[in-house]
């Protein structure tokens, strides 16, 4: 397979009069870890949500493995996909949310086996075996029978990661995965993500954790006011930012957290 795993071309999105994304262009190679940073309101999360069409872009196209997301050709005519047609494409991009969004009426294990059983029609025994291996990987095999309300924020987020991995996605999207966590719980989630990166998972991570971006990402994107202001290897962007906006953002953020 030649070409990037994910390609974003001329992506635009507005909410009412507010232009949130302006002509975004982006390429992600398989195995790459891309971190997106920027001030709040810069469009990072909207960009991530446009990739799997949780938000429908106003214009522009996202390609996964060369295949346009949410659009399909019918002869020479281009059609938008319905929610259920999109489902098949969405399961190739796992997503982890800031607010975890675990299913509260299901135990940790049931959260993980839900989609493999319902969507992929896997036998329950096989799904359970694979789910236990994933829970073990995120260090929560002994919490399989706990409900989300009985787990800490960090544990919930690790179950959410296992739940996404259970669909064997080609790509993982992380939308500020540690922003809702108490500071002492951030590390356990970042460790799981670090381990995933080492195993070669392709990841796009919207984050405020600069140390994670510096240590784990191969590519750093700085966004502001709906555009990509600056991008490149994290060491370059973090240490020798070229743009004034990047410099002032990093001065504010790294001053606090380095």
């Amino acid at each position: 397979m030649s070409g990037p795993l994910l390609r974003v071309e001329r992506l635009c999105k507005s909410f009412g009069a507010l232009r949130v994304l302006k002509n975004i262009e982006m390429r992600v190679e398989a195995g790459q870890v891309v971190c997106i940073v920027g001030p709040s309101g810069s469009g990072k999360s909207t960009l991530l949500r446009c990739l799997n069409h949780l938000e429908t872009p106003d214009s522009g196209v996202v390609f996964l493995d060369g295949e346009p997301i949410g659009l399909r050709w019918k002869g020479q005519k281009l059609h938008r996909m319905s929610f259920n047609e999109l489902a098949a494409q969405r399961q190739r991009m796992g997503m982890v949310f800031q607010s975890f969004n675990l299913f509260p009426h299901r135990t940790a294990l049931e959260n993980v086996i839900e989609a493999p059983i319902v969507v992929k029609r896997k036998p329950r025994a096989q799904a359970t075996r694979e789910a236990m291996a994933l829970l073990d990987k995120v260090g929560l095999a002994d919490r399989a029978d706990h409900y989300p309300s009985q787990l800490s924020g960090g544990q919930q987020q690790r179950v959410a990661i296992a739940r996404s991995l259970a669909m064997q996605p080609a790509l993982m999207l992380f939308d500020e995965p540690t922003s809702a966590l108490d500071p002492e719980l951030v590390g356990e989630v970042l460790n799981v993500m670090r381990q995933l990166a080492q195993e070669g998972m392709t990841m796009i991570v919207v984050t405020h954790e600069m140390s994670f971006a510096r240590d784990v990402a191969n590519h750093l994107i700085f966004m502001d006011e709906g555009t990509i202001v600056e991008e490149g290897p994290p060491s370059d962007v973090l240490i020798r930012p070229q743009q004034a906006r990047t410099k002032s953002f990093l001065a504010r953020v790294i001053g606090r957290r380095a």
Partner: protein
Amino acid sequence: MGAAYSSHPDIHAVRPAPLIHPTRWIGGFALALFVVLFVRLLILNENMQWAVVAQYLFSAEILAGIGRTLLLTLLAMLVGFAIGVVLAIMRLSANPVFRAASWMWIWFFRGVPPLVQLVFWYNLGLLIPEVTFGVPFGPTFWSGPTNRLITPFSAAILGLSFTESAYAAEMVRAGIQAISVGQTEAAATLGMTRAQILRRIVLPQALKILIPPIGNDTISMLKFTSLVSVLAMPDLLYSAQMIYSRTYQTIPLLIVATIWYLVLSTSLTLAEHWIEARVNGRPISLKGVAASLLKSMRPSFARPEPRT
């Protein structure tokens, strides 16, 4: 400071006396007085004819009536709730035709009194004498007079369940909307279809919230079923009426019906608290149900629910 001048004992050595609540004592006494007077009236008034009440309380006719009342309540709730879920989903759908159809159904069946509907459904044969099942302008599968389909029982189920469906729809809609969008989004990113998300993620959570209002509606329905006496269907009330139209013992038989309605609605209340406790994973015991009932009597501001 001040300790030297004070004649009080050391404040750390004494416990404060409990608050006294004079209004509780005055109100309690007044209420007790009324209860005593009322019970005296019940016992001493000869028109109550307690012997007759006892004679009919467990008579076969009354028990059969209770059976019909319960069957009507159960069926009307099941059918009404099933239609209500469909209406709620249509109301929240992106399809404007579904939304409009659901809105019109709810508007109509919430607006027309159930008593009017019962009489109307029972007399449907006057409006539409023949019913035909088949493909419009195509083959016919079954055809016959409407009056063969419309009995007091089927008319009662139609009228009661359609009324219930309108209320259930608004209730279920509120329940679905109470589930966060994040749940749908998480399920969507896992590749689930709309129907799968609704059936496996959103509805189970919504129904759990809806247990108390469903219990409430069931008790309302139990009482609404007494309207079917206009169709001469022998439910609990009409069975009692049939007896007193023969024996002229009106008051004792109305008391028999009242006692049974109270017994049934109390049982339903207990059942609702039992189900609620079960779903919330609390231990199920008579004590637990009693505790849940007592809690529901207390003012909510006095004892805030612990956040779980």
